[in-house]
Each structure stands twice: as C-alpha cells, then as structure tokens.
C-alpha cells in the first residue's frame, strides 16, 4: 500500500486551534530578531470508533502540535501556538503504515499551525516569520519505533 493510496483514504474531521499566545513585549523585538529558537512538541493518539450507521470500525488519529518560539539571543519568549488535527481512516495494519505516511500526518498538522500562525501574526513583529515544516530528522531514527507503539 503506497503512501499516496493511504492519503487518498484519509479524512480530516476537525482542527482545534487551541491556543496562540504572543508576548506582550513582542513589539520591542521588531527588526531585531536575528534568529528564533523553536521548541516543538508533537504527539499522535489513536482511538477506535464505530460508524453509527454502518457499524464499521475505523481509526481516529489526533495529531497534537505545539510550537514555542524564543529569541535565540535573549532567550525571551516570543510566541507559542498549539493545535490538534483530527483524522479518520479505516483500520490500518502495522505493515501498511510507512514512515512517509506517519510524517504526512504530522506535516499537515504542522501546516495548519503555520497557516493559523501566519494569519494571526500579521502586523506583529513576527509577521515575516513562517513556521517551517518538519522532516524525518525531527524524529531522529525513532519513526519506526513510534509506528510500532501506535499500530503494533
């Protein structure tokens, strides 16, 4: 089963834009931020649900993302954003879930944060800053381990 085929079957059922916080002192950083240090927390939770009409079981996947942005020099807090993206898909076997698919679930969730952040940051000292996507390196060499923990 290719990642493209799994992506075809994926439904995005909700996004919870939970919290976005900008430092009240953000304005003092305008034009002075050379580098931003980024902290990112991610989590994926899987639950089984049953369709009330067809009674078929399916998987509900919640990907939680939190970014914390700090000025790299002063280490002062600049902003943070938290959002959870909820997907639905048929019940998956461990052998079907590839690292690419696992990464895709996180990528789309991160891009939701990026879109929301860009919209809310307009007019602030962070308006030209974009939250970047994550790559496999963000998970170290543990992607397969995470996949087994969830689907194994």
């Amino acid at each position: 089963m290719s990642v493209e085929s799994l992506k075809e079957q994926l439904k995005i059922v909700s996004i919870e834009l939970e919290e976005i916080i900008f430092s009240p002192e953000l304005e003092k950083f305008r034009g002075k931020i050379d580098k931003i240090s980024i902290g990112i927390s991610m989590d994926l939770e899987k639950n089984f649900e049953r369709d009330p009409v067809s009674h078929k079981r399916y998987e509900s996947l919640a990907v939680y993302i939190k970014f914390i942005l700090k000025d790299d020099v002063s280490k002062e807090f600049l902003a943070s954003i938290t959002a959870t993206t909820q997907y639905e898909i048929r019940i998956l076997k461990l052998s079907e879930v590839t690292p690419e698919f696992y990464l895709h679930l996180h990528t789309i969730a991160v891009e939701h944060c990026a879109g929301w952040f860009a919209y809310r940051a307009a007019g602030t000292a962070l308006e030209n800053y974009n939250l970047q996507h994550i790559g496999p390196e963000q998970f170290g060499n543990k992607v397969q381990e995470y996949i087994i923990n969830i689907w194994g």
Partner: protein
Amino acid sequence: METNKEINFGYRKQKIKLLEWEVKFSFDQNSSMFWEPEFEIFMGDIDANGHHELTIDAILYYRPDKDNYAFMIKTRNVFRVGFYNDYSNKNFIISILMDVALAHTRAICLDKNMEEKLPLPLIPNFKPSMLHRYANIRLFTPSLIECSYERRHQSGKLNAIVGNMNIGIEEFRNYVIKFEPKPITHPDSIIAGLTHKEGEMQGYANFNYDYEHHEGDEWKMHIDYGMGILPIAEIKVRSSFLLHCKEEELFSIPVLSVIIEEAIINCNERFTEQCKVHNIEFDGSIPANDEQLKMHSQHVINQYFGSRKKDDINNNKMKNDPQPMTFGENTILITKGTFMILDEILFHNNAFDHKHNWEAVSECPIIEPFYLTLKANYMEIEKGEIQLTFFQTVLFYLCLDVALQMMISEHSDKLQAALIKNNFVPERQKEYIKFGNEFYKRLNKNLKDCGATITNLEARRDWASIIR
C-alpha cells in the same frame, strides 16, 4: 491509480497570506453544498542556490452548485523549492505543495469562521490524485504574480582570467523577454523576400546591456541578446550575472567575452526551446564567434568609460538617497499593473507598433535595458522593502504615467484581452487607475516638497496620442 514515487525535494515557506475572502450570500449548511478548490500557480525566478520561487494562490469556493458560490477564500503561499535537478517529478512536487497550501487555507478559514461566526464546514482533505491532475493541467498564467516574463534554466558558475586574477561569475537569472514566430506570412519575412518554407534563411542579432553597481565591488551585469531567423522566429533573452570584482576587471575583454558568450548560448537554447513550444520545426542556431564577442565587449567598455561612468558619478548623490518602497497590496497592484501594460505595448501585443513605441518612450528616457532592470527590481517588492535610486523612482513614475494614460484612453480596448487573461480583471483595472493616480500625485507633491524639478514629470506628455 496508485502512484509510488521516490522523490527528492526540499521546500521552505516564504509567505502565507490571506488575500481575499467573500460571503456572497447567506447560507445554511446543507449536504448539497461542497468545497471546490482552484489554484493559480507560478514558478518564479531561480535564486543563486538553485531554488525556485513557487507561488500558489489557493482559492476555495463553497458552492451550492457548480455555477454559484456562497463563500470564497483566497490565500497566497510562497515557497522556495529545491528540485535538486530532478524535474521529472515537478508536477508531483507541486501537487504536494498544493496540499500544503490547502492546509494553510483550511486553518485560516477556520479562524475566519470563528471571527465572523460563519457556519462553514471544514475544508476537507482533497485527494492527492485530484491534486496531481490539477498540477498536470495547470496553466502557468503569467498573471499579476509575475507579469510576462518567464523563468529560465538553472544558474551557472563561470570564470574568467584577467591578468593573474581568476574572476568568478555567477549567472543568476535568464529569461525570455520576447519570442515572436515570424513564418513566411509574417510581414518581416515578406519584406525580406523569404516566403518559401524550404528556401533561403536570414539571420540577425542585436545586443544591449545594463549594469547595477552595489556597495563594495558587487556588480550585476545584464545582457540583452536578441536574434532572429527569417522566416522562423525572433527572440530576445536577458541573462543576468553577479560579480564581485573591480571596475577594471569587469569592464575588460576577458570577463565581458565570457559573459556575452554565455548570454548568446542562452539565447540560442531558448530559441530552440521556444520553437518546440510553438510547434516550429527548427534545430539550427547562430553561435557566437570570437570576433563578435570582442566587438560587443569593446562596445560595452567604450560606452562605460566614455559616458556611463561619468553619468554614474553624477548619479551618485541619487544613489545615496534611495527611495524606499514597501510592500502593500496597492503598491503591488500598481507595480505589476504598470509593467503588464507596458510589456503589452512594447513587447507582446501586436496591435501596437513596438518599434515606434520604443522610440517614443526612449526619449523620456525609458530605454529598453533600463526598463528591464527597473522591472526586475520592482518585481522584488513582494519580498519586502526595495531600495530604488532616484533615477529609478523617476523612471517608474514615467512608466506609470504611460500605463495610466493607456488605461483611460481608447488604447484600453486593445489591451483588454491580454489583461483579463493575466487576471487583471476590470475591477482590478479600476483600482489600478484610482490608486495609480493617487500614487502619481503623491510623487509630484513629494518632489515639490523636496524642491526637486523633474522636467519629464512636470510636462506630462500625451501618451494616448504618441503611442501607436
């Protein structure tokens, strides 16, 4: 159909922005309503690192049926994309970034929903196969995003030896300024008596240049090389090079020969490519020869040391007092609208007499290489504040004056087809005229406040009568 691809690419987001949203009529959520996406995609210039700028405008319509919509939202998503020389997967990669653009739009739309208390459902996950189809059939409309020039192939590194010095030359951009098929039925071919497909051919070439001198020893040298083969076609290509060297090194035969030779190679390659695009069977070329390279190089050197250098000294004060110009929707509209209109009357639209029009605007002096450099610099405005010399500022306002007069005169009718094709719809045209006029008046006031007198701006010409 399953797709299973190993792809190698990287991207970085440059900008995510809500451009427009509209509630057209009140609506209740019902099961018959659906979301439909539309995309405007433009692959822009390539940077020194070999990355492309890819702009995806994602437009989402919430529709009761295929002809109407109740709500629309449009976002602009600008990426830097590295294809790592693997262009075979270009459309596939673009479709992935379309998905990313949709994710941005989904989140922004959700926030907008909450702000405006709209009963909109979540923008769904669109199937990758559908996005692939979109990517495959997409039209790179050279719309407001980039006007009318197109990005060309990858940048290259060159070098030249001057004395004991090895001068590094970086080619950072080349693009087709103009391509025009000139078959046996074209007036130029008829005048030249070349009206037989298999008959004789006639080649010609033209050369021009411009340069920009930045702080330190940074130079940008632009070569505009044009060639025509009758009865086939005519092309003009701008190749731009970046150098860090002393004046006497740049303006030397060895360095200029390398640059000009590369520009001629680019021109020939683009000619072959454009012939293919236009279904013209031709695989010949007009290669550069040493004599030609030396002649063009000497021309540049003579002109630089004979006149341009002196002009630069006089312009120094202007250069030290640059006019900042910042990003804003109106500024972008004015900038891109102006160059789109001027491109039509000077290069693309055959309803206009290009030769006559160039002669007319050159008196201002909107000279072709200056115009192209000005346009390239102004097109950077979307990426942030740009610094323009006083001369460039005045030149832009002259261009604006011409463009505005075109839009409010009978010439406007001849422009409509191209403007609408380029997404410069009547509503935008109205805004362009309104904001453009305000912009123009503001400059005159600023200049008067500074005590400056610019004859070219004070005595407005009747461009509607001059342009043909």
